[in-house]
């Protein structure tokens, strides 16, 4: 492998692990700022290729720098760009080069470096980062392949492990429990009592889980109507709550009522009306909205916020158990990427191209009469040397490293040199 190629791959990053929120806020990039920063970095010749990943938990600049001094270049750039003190940047950033930078990105894409282990949102953010870099014209072969490989690693980790399988948010857990009672939720009715922040979150999750037209009940009817309009649901006045309960398969309650909003008598009556069909209650309120003894009613399932938090903790532990398998996948993908990167060096490419020419020559010689072979071999060798001389000279002499890599990549692709 060409160590110099790998060494020029650098990452300067700020993440929730080392940088506090005030610093992260100052180095965060909007989509427009990413385009602007990348264009500026490339135009000024500070980097040959670059991609910026910016989320609420991290801002990371991946670059292919002309030389090995990328750290100073990037911190100086950030210092000017954001008006930050260079010492402040140095104190809160981390810097990785070569394989370490690649591994870091693969771990990020796989959710292994996320605050919520295994979360899936980051994979979309990595994809989005590549897309913005492409728009800015700051990616070529190395970054393009790096980010595509990162996305592939992220997908593999999620497909081959259970790291993203167990939900962590109480809303997801609540609907996961509902799915385990009712199966497909698209034909089930959900009643949300309370249109505050938690009620809104659950109403949205209900729609994401496939529920059509969740019913919203709130003491202030106008808020129920607002929430219903925003999630495609239906608002019911507070006075209609008792009538709405028997019609719901899932009841989510999140009010600030000091008394129970749904009593055992109401649930028993509802179950009679429902002829025993199961009901599930998610009680997110403190103090509780649903009478705790409703669980004693046949076919009634009721979960409090504490139950859901407990599942979240268990799921966190389950995700953590998957980390060794996920790390192994990251290692495999890292190895593949570094092997590809090392192939991009000029010398092995020229050697492989010459070998390919010799193979083709030998194929042709096999078809020629034996007496002619020696003469033809010399002729074909001279011919291929002439044909290759100028393209290879230009490829070797290219002064711009990124363009040189592009050319190597093009030669490898055109002559199918990665097949070996």
């Amino acid at each position, binding site marked *: 492998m060409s160590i110099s190629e790998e060494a020029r791959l650098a990452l300067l990053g700020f993440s929730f692990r080392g940088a506090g929120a005030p610093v992260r806020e100052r180095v965060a990039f909007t989509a427009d700022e990413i385009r602007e920063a990348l264009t500026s970095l490339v135009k000024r010749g500070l980097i040959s290729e670059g991609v910026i990943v910016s989320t609420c938990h991290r801002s990371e600049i991946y670059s292919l720098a002309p030389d090995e001094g990328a750290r100073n270049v990037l911190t100086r750039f950030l210092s000017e760009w954001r008006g930050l003190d260079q010492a402040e940047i140095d104190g809160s950033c981390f810097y990785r080069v070569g394989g370490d930078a690649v591994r870091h990105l693969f771990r990020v894409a796989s959710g292994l470096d996320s605050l919520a282990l295994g979360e899936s949102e980051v994979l979309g953010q990595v994809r989005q980062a590549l897309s913005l870099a492409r728009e800015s014209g700051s990616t070529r072969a190395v970054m393009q392949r790096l980010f595509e490989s990162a996305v592939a690693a992220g997908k593999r980790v999620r*497909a*081959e492990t259970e790291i993203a*399988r*167990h939900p962590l948010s109480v809303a997801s*857990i609540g609907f*996961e*429990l509902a*799915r*385990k*009672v*009712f*199966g497909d939720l698209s034909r089930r009715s959900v009643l949300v009592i309370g249109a505050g922040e938690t009620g809104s979150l659950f109403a949205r999750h209900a729609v994401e889980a496939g529920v059509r037209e969740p019913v919203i009940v709130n003491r202030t009817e106008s808020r129920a109507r607002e929430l219903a309009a925003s999630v495609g649901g239906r608002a019911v006045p507070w006075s209609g709550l008792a009538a709405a309960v028997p019609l719901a398969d899932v009841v989510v309650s999140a009010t600030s009522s000091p008394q129970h909003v749904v009593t055992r008598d109401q649930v028993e009556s509802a*179950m*009679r009306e429902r*002829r*025993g*069909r*199961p009901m599930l209650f998610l009680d997110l309120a403190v103090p509780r909205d649903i009478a705790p003894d409703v*669980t004693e009613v*046949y*076919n009634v*399932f009721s*979960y409090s916020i504490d*139950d859901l938090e*407990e*599942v979240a903790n*268990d*799921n966190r532990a389950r995700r953590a158990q998957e980390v060794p398998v996920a790390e192994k996948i990251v290692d495999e993908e890292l190895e593949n990427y570094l092997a590809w990167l090392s192939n991009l060096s000029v010398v092995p490419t020229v050697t492989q191209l010459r070998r390919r020419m010799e193979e083709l020559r030998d194929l042709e010689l096999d078809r020629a009469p034996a007496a002619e072979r020696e003469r033809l071999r010399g002729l074909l060798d001279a011919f291929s040397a002439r044909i290759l001389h100028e393209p290879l000279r230009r490829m070797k002499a290219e002064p711009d490293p990124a363009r040189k890599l592009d050319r190597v990549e093009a030669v490898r692709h055109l002559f199918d040199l990665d097949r070996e």
Partner: protein
Amino acid sequence: MDSHLLGWFAVALYLGAEAYSILSLVRPRVPALPGHLLVGGGLILQFAELETRARALHSVPYRTIGGSLALFGWMLGLSYLALLFRHRERAVGPFLIPFVILFSVLGLLLPQPGLAARSDTRGALFALHVTFAILAYAAFTFSFVLSLLYLIQKRQLRRVHTGLLFSRLPALDVIARLNRTSVSIGLSVLGVSVVLGAIWAEHVWSRLPDAKFGSAILTLSVYGFLLWKDRRGWVGERVALLSILGFTLIIFSYTVVNLYFSAQHAFR
């Protein structure tokens, strides 16, 4: 080839299917096809074994408890394969396949004298009567396994145990629907079997059907009651418990009644 050897090969494939279905339970992303092929292969071999026996006896091999259990195991396996293709619920496999193995192994181990069938037990009517009865038992065994799964899943939901089994087992509603279908099929097929048996008995026997007839009527009543209550508020756990009761009745009918109380249905 020795028919028993075919039977043991079938059992080996069922064991492979069981191992694979446990693997699928732990790693649900493993492809389904090998499991299907193992069950399918086992069924083909076991069918060949049953056919060899039938040719030797000139009758469906249900006159001995061994032959009857082998047919039972085969029909249960066939029902499982139908479930795989129809509902793709692989999570039932690890719990159902052991029953297929158990009945098939018992079918091979229990004595099976190679006596030719009595003349009165030859003919399509009798064959259909017994085959339908065994098919009904297979459907009720299915219902029994589903009921156990229902109780396990419900217990996990009640205790908020969201481990491996919780995530792999189907939703309660899905298990309840499959159970309903199994019981409906079992009930219909057993009803047909009883009618066919009664028609056949009228021609052959000098007196009214025996204790086995009574136990079949009792089985029909229990499962009929189950379906009736299922539509009237017993959906879920109570139906599952009733199905388990029904299954114990079948085992009782299959063993104790056949061996000790029934003159006409005794294995010989």
